[in-house]
């Protein structure tokens, strides 16, 4: 372990607690509905509300991760500029995903755009 790091403040015990905690919350979230999979109406009278709300979760969370990652490159300001290669690669990937719905084409077009932009500029 290097002594220059910011995390040396963490003891070995704290690291174990961290991994355990991350594992428990992640596995718990993934396993909970599977564990109760035999039940028809898992959420009782709130079944319909929960089902509708859950249907928005992936779009809501993934978009909330994507948009700041793409638009805020310096950690502070929104940059819609020509040299924001993340933005142009993302727009290319989105256009391909929207037109084709093809995962491989989406990933390859996004990464290729990024690679080419970096190569050329």
């Amino acid at each position, binding site marked *: 372990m290097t002594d220059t790091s910011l995390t040396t403040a963490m003891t070995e015990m704290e690291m174990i607690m961290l991994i355990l905690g991350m594992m428990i919350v992640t596995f718990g979230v993934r396993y909970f509905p*599977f564990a109760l999979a035999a039940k028809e109406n898992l959420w009782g009278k709130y079944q319909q509300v929960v089902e509708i709300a859950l249907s928005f*979760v992936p779009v809501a969370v993934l978009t909330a*991760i994507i948009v700041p990652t793409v638009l805020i490159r310096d950690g502070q300001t929104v940059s819609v500029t020509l040299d924001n290669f993340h933005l142009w690669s993302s727009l290319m990937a989105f256009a391909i995903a929207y037109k084709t719905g093809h*995962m491989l084409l989406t*990933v390859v077009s996004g990464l290729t755009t990024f690679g080419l932009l970096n190569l050329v500029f």
Partner: protein
Amino acid sequence: MKRSDLFLFGVRDTLPLVLAAIPFGILFGALCQAFGLPLALCLAMSVFVFAGSSQFVAANLLGIGTPWMIVIGATFIVNLRHMMYSANLMKHVRHYSQIRRAMMAFGLTDETFATVLNRLNRYQDDPFSGSYYFGSYAFMYLNWIFCSWLGFILGSQLDDPLAWGLDVAMVVAFIGIVTPLLVNHLMWLSAVLAGATAILCHSLPFQLGILVSAVVAIVIPTIIALRTNSSQTNDPTNSLESES
């Protein structure tokens, strides 16, 4: 169809997302190295947690000296979406034992969910296959652990791994997952709300911006869907379920 064939189809269909996970895994490993985290901690996350975007968030938080309990909280927030994936697939796993369900749940990443759901949607008459699921999951898992390790080793060669912009791989994979889900106005509304709120709340500490944006982007479309539901005869939840 034979089980081994289904397993291999699972591997094959996950390839595009594995491709995107390679640079992302390398970035995660390199970040851990750059922030001075021990290799054991880096690998333990990939082996025991196995959730890319939350590991990425965790590495960034640890890098600025965030207390471990807050990192666990952020992990929970970032991974909460997996409950929806699990809830979505639960009707297919009813006949499996709890141990098998637990094993499946451990590997329920964005990538495996997207791959499995895609197959279920494409071949409506084909039943859910555990072998296919495990094929997708095993490929993602082994690749993820290997790339985290590789990134950590390569990390010592790079000064600033973030400057390489490898996080573009995560973004592109997530775009590939989100875009096909934008099947109606409410999904679009949810995406727009999430993006706008995430920008506005960006300066909040401990990734709380993701939580706030997610709540806004879930609650508002849900309220609108319920209102439309009670005022009209046609049921928007049906269209949400059948199309998504």
